[in-house]
C-alpha cells in the first residue's frame, strides 16, 4: 500500500519520525509518471523544483528545526494559481506561455510552511466549467472510472488527490469548483468563507465569488491546509482581517449539541435517487451522533443559478478583458489592424465556454440591459444571503447533496451548456452568500462512483464546519475508500 493511503495525521507523523520529504515527493512524482497519462490531472509536474524543496525541508528537519506539520508534504496546485517562474496557464491557449513574475499569496504561505509544490493541475479553462473538459490541453479523467469526468473546474486537483498523486491539493471555488469535483472524485474539498483566503495571485474568474481552498483525502488534511492558507493579506482588499482558528488542533473534537439544518429546496426535481438516499443516510448518521436535525427553507435558492451566471459572467467579461495580446498572452499571427488583433487573438486564445461566458457577461452589463440583468441579480443575491442569515440563527450547518448526481461521463453534458449549469444547483448559493462549504465522501453509486455530502456553515465558521464534517467522516468509512489504481 502506498504511503498516500495513510490518513493525513499518519502522514504528518511519518514525516516527523524519519520518513524523508524527498522519498515522499519522489513516490508522488513516480506515481504521476506512471499513471497520469490515463488521468491527465496535471498540466505540468514540477519534478526538479519539488525534489529540491523537499531536500531543503529534510535538511531543516535534520538540523533540528521545528517545522509546520505541513512541511514536506507534496501539494498540487490548480493551474490558475500563480507560481513565480513556472507557467500558469489556466488551461487556456491564451496563457500557454505565461510565466508569472510573482507567487500567489497562498503559494508564499505554502513555501514558508515547507510544503512541496509538485505540479500544476488541469482545470476548465479559466475555471469556467464543471467537468474539466473545457481545457485547452484536453480533459482530466475521473480516477474511479476514466470514462467519467472528475467534475470541475478544479478537476485536476481533485483527481490528483483521488489518484494519490499528491496527498493535498489547492483548487478554487467560484460556484462549486472545489466541492463538486471533490464529490465526483471521492475526496474532501473545502471552500472557505469569502475573504478568508487571499485571492492575490489567483487568476480571477469572478472576483466576488472566487475563493481558494484545499482538497485532501480526509477532513484533517483539509484542516491542515486551510490553516496554512487562511488569514489576512494586505494585498487583497477583500481579504478579511480576523483571527484564524487552528483547525488542525481542534478538528477531532466532536461538537456537542450540533444543529443540522436540512432545506426542503435541496431535495427537489433532478436529484439522483442514489444521491438522495446517501444524503438521507447522512442525516441519520448525524442524528445517531446526537445532532438535532432541523427542517428549514431557503426560499430564494431556486434563483441561485440564474443569479450566479449573470454575476459570474459579468465579472468574467471584465476580468478577461485584459487578455488582448498586448502585454502578455496569446497574440494572433494574422490581423488587419489593432482592433482586429484584439479580436483575432481572443478568438484564437479562448475556448468555446470562455467565449460563451464573456458574451453573456458583456451582454448583461451592456447599455440597456444592466438593470434588468446584472443589477437585478445583485439584488436577488442579497435575498439569497438573507435566507442563509435567517437559517444560521437556527442551525450550525446546513446539510445537502454536493451535486445532484455522481460523476457524469466525459462528453455527456458538453452539448448543452444550460444543463451543465443547472447541475451546480447545490453549490452555487454558498458562493453567492460568501459561506464556507465542504464536500465529504458519503457513499458510492451502484456503478462504483463516489457520492459527496455538502455541509455549509455561517461565514467564518470553518472550524465548526470542519469538526462537523470530521464527525461524519469518523462515523463512516467513505473517506478511506480509494479507486483501484491500475498500471
Amino acid at each position, binding site marked *: 500500500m502506498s504511503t498516500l493511503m495513510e490518513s493525513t495525521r499518519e502522514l504528518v507523523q511519518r514525516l516527523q519520525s524519519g520518513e524523508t520529504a524527498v522519498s515522499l515527493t519522489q513516490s508522488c512524482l513516480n506515481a504521476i509518471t506512471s499513471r497520469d497519462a490515463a488521468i491527465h490531472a496535471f498540466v505540468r509536474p514540477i519534478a526538479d523544483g519539488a525534489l529540491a524543496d523537499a531536500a531543503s525541508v529534510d535538511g531543516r528537519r535534520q538540523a533540528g528545526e521545528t517545522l509546520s506539520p505541513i512541511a514536506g508534504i507534496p501539494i498540487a496546485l490548480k493551474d490558475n494559481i500563480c507560481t513565480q517562474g513556472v507557467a500558469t496557464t489556466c488551461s487556456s491557449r491564451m496563457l500557454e506561455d505565461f510565466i508569472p513574475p510573482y507567487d500567489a499569496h497562498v503559494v508564499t504561505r505554502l513555501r514558508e510552511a515547507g510544503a512541496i509544490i509538485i505540479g500544476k493541475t488541469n482545470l476548465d479553462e479559466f475555471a469556467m466549467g464543471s467537468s474539466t473538459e473545457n481545457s485547452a490541453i484536453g480533459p482530466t479523467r475521473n480516477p474511479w472510472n476514466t470514462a467519467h469526468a472528475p467534475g470541475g473546474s478544479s478537476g485536476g486537483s481533485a483527481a490528483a488527490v483521488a489518484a494519490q498523486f499528491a496527498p493535498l491539493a489547492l483548487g478554487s471555488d467560484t460556484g462549486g469548483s472545489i466541492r463538486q469535483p471533490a464529490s465526483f472524485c471521492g475526496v474532501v474539498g473545502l471552500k472557505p468563507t469569502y475573504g478568508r483566503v487571499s485571492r492575490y495571485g489567483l487568476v*480571477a474568474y469572478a*472576483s466576488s465569488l472566487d475563493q481558494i481552498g484545499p482538497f485532501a483525502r480526509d477532513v484533517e488534511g483539509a484542516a491542515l491546509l486551510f490553516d496554512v492558507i487562511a488569514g489576512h493579506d494586505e494585498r487583497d482588499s477583500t481579504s478579511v482581517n480576523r483571527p484564524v482558528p487552528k483547525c488542525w488542533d481542534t478538528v477531532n473534537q466532536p461538537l456537542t449539541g450540533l444543529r443540522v439544518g436540512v432545506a426542503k429546496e435541496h431535495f427537489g426535481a433532478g436529484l439522483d435517487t442514489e444521491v438522495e438516499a446517501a444524503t438521507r443516510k447522512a442525516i441519520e448518521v448525524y442524528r445517531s451522533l446526537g445532532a438535532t436535525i432541523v427542517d428549514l427553507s431557503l426560499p430564494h435558492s431556486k434563483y441561485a443559478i440564474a443569479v450566479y451566471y449573470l454575476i459570474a459572467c*459579468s465579472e468574467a*467579461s*471584465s476580468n478577461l478583458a485584459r487578455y488582448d495580446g498586448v502585454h502578455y498572452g496569446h497574440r494572433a499571427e494574422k490581423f488587419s489592424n489593432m482592433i482586429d488583433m*484584439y479580436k483575432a487573438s481572443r478568438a484564437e486564445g479562448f475556448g468555446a465556454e470562455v467565449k460563451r461566458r464573456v458574451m453573456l457577461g458583456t451582454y448583461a452589463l451592456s447599455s440597456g440591459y444592466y438593470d434588468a440583468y446584472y443589477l437585478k441579480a445583485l439584488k436577488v443575491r442579497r435575498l439569497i444571503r438573507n435566507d442563509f442569515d435567517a437559517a444560521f440563527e437556527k442551525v450550525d450547518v446546513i446539510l445537502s447533496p454536493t451535486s445532484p448526481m455522481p460523476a457524469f461521463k466525459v462528453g455527456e453534458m458538453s452539448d448543452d451548456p444550460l444543463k451543465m449549469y443547472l447541475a451546480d444547483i447545490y453549490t452555487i448559493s454558498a458562493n453567492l452568500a460568501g459561506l464556507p462549504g465542504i464536500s465529504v465522501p458519503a457513499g458510492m453509486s451502484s456503478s462504483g462512483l463516489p457520492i459527496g455530502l455538502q455541509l455549509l456553515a455561517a461565514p467564518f465558521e470553518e472550524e465548526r464546519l470542519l469538526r462537523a464534517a470530521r464527525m461524519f467522516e469518523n462515523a463512516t468509512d467513505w473517506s478511506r475508500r480509494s479507486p483501484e489504481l491500475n498500471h
Partner: protein
Amino acid sequence: MANYTTIIGLEVHVQLLTNTKLFCSCPNRFNPDNPNVQTCPVCLGLPGALPVLNREAFKLSLKTAMALNLELARFTKWDRKQYYYPDLPKGYQTSQFDLPFSSKGYVEFDMPSGELKRVRLIRAHLEEDAGKNIHDESGRGADSQVDLNRAGTPLLEIVSEPDIRSAEEARLYLEEMRLLLLTIGVSDCNMQEGSLRCDANVNLHIHENGETIPTPIVEIKNLNSFRFLEAAIEYEVKRQLGQWEKERKRLGDVDAPKTTRGYDPDRGVTVLQRGKEGAADYRYFPCPDLVPVVVSEEELAAIRATLVEFPSARRRRYCDQLGLSAYDAQVIVNQGNEFAAYYDAVVAICGDGKLAANWTTQDVLRQTNDRRETLAQFPVTAEILGTLLSKVAKNELTIKAARDVFAALLAEADEEKPISKERIDAIVTEKGLATISDTGAIDAVINAVVARNEKAAADVRAGKQQALGPLVGQVMKELKGADAKVVRQMLIDKLSS
C-alpha cells in the same frame, strides 16, 4: 453672421502628488525617458494581481474637493469602465461612476472686467491614469510603443457644468483651478508633463428668430496648455459657426452625434478623431476587487484642519482688510501660495498692506525676475523687507532711501555677504539715509542754499514755480535723509514769507 452664445464645459484631469500609484506601490513619477521601469503585477494588469487603494491619494482627493466647494459623499466606491486600448492593461479603467466621492461644487474667479465669475462643478472623482502610447510619426506604419510607467497614477477628474462662455473664460477657469490645486499642494500641475490637462466640450447656442438652437457638442481632447485651450476653443467656435451656417445641424439630430476632436497646435486647428463617434458602451459596474470607503466626520475635520487659505478668500481678505485694489490682490494671489505667503509675512511686520503690495508686486517681482531667483532663493527675506518697510511706515526712511537700502542689501548679497534685518540700520547709518526730522538742521541748509542761489530764490518769490525744483534738489543733495516733501514745503514757506 448668426447671433450666438458659446457654451463650454471643461473636464479637468489632475495627477495627484503622491509617492506611489493609486492601487499599487510603484513610484508615481514622470519618467518618459526610461519606459516600463515603474510597473508591477498590479499596474501591468497581470492575471491574479489585485488593487489596494492609496490612502494618501484619497486624502488629497478630499482636500481638493473641499477647495472646490464640493459636497463630500459619506459613502463612495470604485467602478470599472471598460474599453480596450493598449495603454490600458486591464481592459478597464478603475474609476468612479454613480457614487463619486464628491459632487456639486463651484470655482469662482475674477474676470478682467472685475466681474466675479462662478463656474459650477458637477463632480470630482478619483480614477487611475492610463499608460502612454507612442505612435510612429514617420508614416511608414511602424508599430506603436506602449509605456506603462504612468499606468495607475492617481488622477482626479473634475467636471464642470457648461457654465463657461468664452475661450478666455475657459483659460481663466483653468488658471484658477491650477492656482487652487497648487495652493493646497495636491498636484504639481505641470502641464508639460501632463499632470494637469483638460477636455473641453464646446457647442453654440444660436439665437435666431426668438429661438435658441443648440448645435451638436464637440469634445476637444487632451488640451495641455492654457494657450492651446484658448486657441482650440476659439478655432472650434469659428468652425462650428461655419458648420451651422452650412449644415444647420442641431444638438440631438440623429445625423449629428457628439464628436471628438484633437487640437493640432502646429496648424492651429482641431481635427476629427475617427472612431469615437457616438456614445461608447463602457459597461460600468462596481469593481469587485475594491471595497467601498465610508468617510467619517472626524477624518474630514482632520483634513479640514490642514487646509490653507484658498486664493479667492485671500483676495477678498486683501481687499477688505488690507485695502488693496482688486488688481493688486489678484496679482499677489495669482503668483501662487509662496508669493502670497511672502507678502503676508511682510505685512505682518510692516503693518501697511498697500505699501507691502507696492513693494512686493514691483520691486520684489522685478528683482526676482531679473535675478532669475525663486522667492526662496531671493536674499531679501520677508523679515528683512518687512523691517525695511516698517521704517518707511514710521517715516524713519523715505521711499527713496528705502530703495537705496534695498539695492545695497542686494549688492551685499551679491558679494556673498550675509544680510539680515540688522544690516538695514547699519546701511542707513553708513549712507546717511535716515530721514532728517530735525527742522533746525533742514532750516540751516535751506538758508545756505538760498544764500548761494539768489537768482533762483528771487524767481520763486516772483512766482516762477519751476525755479523751486533745483533748490529742493540742492537741499536734498546735502541732506540725504530728508523728506523731499518736507523740504519743498519749508522752502515755499521761507520764500513766500
